[in-house]
């Protein structure tokens, strides 16, 4: 029976690809290790090597086909002694069955799995505020003006009649850097594999060609060293963009980020600061396990002197990255690998910027406020759609900037809806949601009809196993359940 050659998965997050070229043709003999086809993913063109030997019997997916799903049969391979007549009898059932079920078991998609998430509920304590004596008048910090009189929440950012184009987050980030590098000669980008390799996640694609090796700098694997070097370069008048291959590796460099970049302006009495952008993918990708799956939003948001940005849409990614590069302060710019390939409408403007420190109302609603940011928005938005079908209108706020946080927009919304649910992928303790909940308690206590509930990643290191990883991440269902709890439905 002929063997099916399946569309291979070529990266942790690949779900489909373009079959760019057949290197072998029908009738060609194939040895294990031979390149048989070329496949384009959103990141790269990859060569597909044969794992078995035989003769290419039939091509099932023509070259040039786009959106070929992983594990789709793309060709049939005839074993030694088989001829074309074997093709009629159908493909090797065994291998197909095995791989199809594997795809279900281990796919990297992140849909919620209701049965399982119900079983693995968090063991210790709920989120409800039980002890009212915890309520205190804020003794420190600034007093906040009542935000009711602020500008309309949906302040129009995009001039009317602006043409919109569809762009991936990946392209938006690249364009933002390229535009700022054209605009300001002091801006340069540095990091592992950013130049010749065109970026480990292809965010810096094309920059070396346009700006040359002086401004697009490949570094050795020395995060603490090059982060500190970036700080020094900023002291010296340059405007570095430091790419971390992922933010997990910035833990090697966190001392320079916090002790040197964040505190200098204050320690120097305002004389000199550190205009620098630290950027890269943050949070879980797919199946990359505990050391490579951490969301640092809450970590960096703890630190005075840092600005922390975590966009969701391509328009925000571009506009905020441009603002971050121009900002005279150190900015932590948290991206997400899963979002890189997502397309969004973005305004076609010569100089599109988005202000740091301003949230965006993604969806208007009256019954509950859902606050999220970055990839957390994917759960929030889907949950809001589902809830609308049941007659619950959620207002979804995309924070966009974690620090300084636009709490005015949140408070204004909560005063209208009287309920709030926060959504993020990071750990629950001392989370962004925890901070929002405490601020709402202080500033809108009398407007609350229910405790603020947090939906977050589970309080465990990220597991590798597909079923456990799915449970460790938040789910749409958890957001829906939280909203129903605060609206007292079901």
């Amino acid at each position, binding site marked *: 029976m002929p063997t099916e050659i*399946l569309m*291979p*998965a*070529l*990266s*942790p997050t*690949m779900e489909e690809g373009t079959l760019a070229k057949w290197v072998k043709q029908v009738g060609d003999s194939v040895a294990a290790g031979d390149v048989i086809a070329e496949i384009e*993913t959103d*990141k*790269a*063109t*990859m*060569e597909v090597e044969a*794992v078995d030997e035989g003769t290419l019997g039939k091509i099932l997916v023509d070259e040039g086909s786009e959106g070929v799903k*992983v*594990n789709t049969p793309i060709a049939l391979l005839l074993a030694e002694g088989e001829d074309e007549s074997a093709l009629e009898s159908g493909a090797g059932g065994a291998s197909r069955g*095995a*791989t199809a079920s*594997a795809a279900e*078991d*281990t*796919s990297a998609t992140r849909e919620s799995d209701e049965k*399982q998430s119900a*079983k*693995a509920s968090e*063991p210790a304590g709920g989120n409800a505020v039980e002890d009212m004596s915890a309520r205190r008048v804020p003794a420190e910090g600034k007093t906040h003006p009542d935000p009711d009189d602020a500008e309309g929440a949906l302040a129009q950012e995009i001039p009317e009649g602006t043409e919109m184009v569809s762009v991936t987050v990946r392209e938006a980030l690249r364009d933002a850097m390229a535009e700022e590098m054209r605009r300001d000669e002091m801006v340069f980008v540095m990091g*592992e*594999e950013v130049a*010749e*390799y065109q970026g*480990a996640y292809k965010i810096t694609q094309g920059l070396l060609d346009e700006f040359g090796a002086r401004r697009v700098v*490949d*570094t*050795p*694997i*020395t*995060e603490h*060293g090059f982060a500190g070097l970036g700080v020094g370069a900023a002291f010296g008048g340059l405007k570095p963009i430091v790419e971390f291959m992922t933010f*997990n*590796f910035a833990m*090697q460099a966190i001392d320079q980020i916090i002790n040197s970049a964040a505190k200098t302006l204050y320690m120097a009495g305002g004389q000199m600061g550190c205009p620098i952008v630290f950027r890269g993918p943050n949070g879980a*990708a797919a*199946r*990359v*396990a*505990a*050391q*490579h799956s951490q969301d640092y939003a809450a970590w960096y948001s703890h630190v005075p002197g840092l600005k922390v940005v975590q966009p969701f849409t391509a328009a925000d990614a571009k506009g905020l990255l441009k603002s971050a590069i121009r900002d005279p302060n150190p900015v932590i710019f948290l991206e997400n690998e899963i979002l890189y390939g997502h397309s969004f409408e973005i305004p076609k403007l010569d100089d599109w910027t988005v202000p740091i420190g301003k949230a965006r109302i993604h969806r208007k609603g009256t019954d509950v406020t859902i606050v999220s940011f970055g990839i957390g928005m994917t759960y929030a938005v889907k949950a809001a759609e589902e809830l609308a079908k049941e007659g619950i209108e959620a207002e979804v706020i995309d924070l966009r900037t974690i620090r300084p946080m636009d709490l005015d927009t949140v408070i204004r919304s909560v005063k209208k809806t009287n309920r709030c649910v926060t959504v993020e992928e990071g750990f629950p303790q001392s989370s962004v949601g925890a901070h929002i909940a405490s601020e709402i308690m202080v500033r809108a206590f009398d407007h609350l009809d229910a405790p603020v509930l947090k939906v977050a990643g*589970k*309080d*465990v*290191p990220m*597991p*590798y*196993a*597909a*079923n*456990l990883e799915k*449970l*460790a991440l938040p789910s749409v269902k958890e957001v829906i359940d939280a909203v129903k709890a605060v609206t007292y439905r079901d």
Partner: protein
Amino acid sequence: MAARSRKSGAGAPSTEKGGTAKAGSAHEIVKTLEHFDAPAPAKFSRDEDVRAYRDMLLIRRFEEKAGQLYGMGFIGGFCHLYIGQEAVVVGMQMAMKEGDEVVTGYRDHGHMLATGMEARGVMAELTGRRSGYSKGKGGSMHMFSKEKKFFGGHGIVGAQVPIGTGLAFSNKYNGTDAIAITYFGDGAANQGQVYESFNMASLWKLPVVYVIENNRYAMGTSVSRASAETNFSHRGVSFKIPGFQVDGMDVRAVKAAGDLAAEHCRSGDGPIILEMMTYRYRGHSMSDPAKYRTRDEVQKMRSESDPIEQVKKRLVSDHGMSEDDVKAVDKEVRDVVADAADFAQNDPEPDVSELWTDIYAEAVPQAAE
């Protein structure tokens, strides 16, 4: 030898002695920092060559299977294959004693198999199943075996280097004669914590062998694009740590270097650096299109320096084994790998309750007085 980019190895003073380095010659080489020469390759008996062949082939076939399972979606995330570098771990393992520790980075499947960890347990971890070494929670990059003294499996480049140094510290502290074999890559060799470790290890004479697996690339960056001093065996000079380059494609050369290093460490002379000149045939991980090198370069290494082919030839020419004898070993290895793959595909995923276990260790209750 194509894997060897530097000339310093030839004409070592101990070459005539060959084989396992005698204490005298070993000390002469490593105690004088002016000498950076590898000992001559060990002479292998038939049994040793058979063992080397089998162990390297097991890694090769295991990794090929892992690559296939990745393509089929059974393995996810990052998966870094060791194909091409097999002689390094197998040769070092042949020089080690029971009780010696091993620690490495994320390209770790070969190291685990070499320490004697079960193919089934490693493969089941790769597929994220409950019988994997970490119950499916660690995956390709994070596996451990207390029993086999394998301390991971680390995803952060360079992090294993101080950890290996700490294992050596505990050996010295406890007065055992165990040594800690600490593997890391040419890319990892530029991390600052490597040099912090070197200094402490030398200062405190810790029994640690730093094995730098120089496979010429760190992801897409060739050694010369990332390193000011590309001879990594010299990286210990300012810490008074001796080192030399070794033909890492020849398992006998690795074994001889390992013997010498073990002897050096065990006799209380402190750390030593072995720079293994090796090569990875596959991309950095499964998602690396490997455009930074030519197919010819890879092909040349495969056809001229393959570590397994070298031994296979010797089995026939030096040890008089027949094609069938060799095929019997191949078959045994294939069966082990097929069985592991089968097991790893059918083993169930971890129970969902496992999400919440192993976060904190239970305190051992103290006996009440």
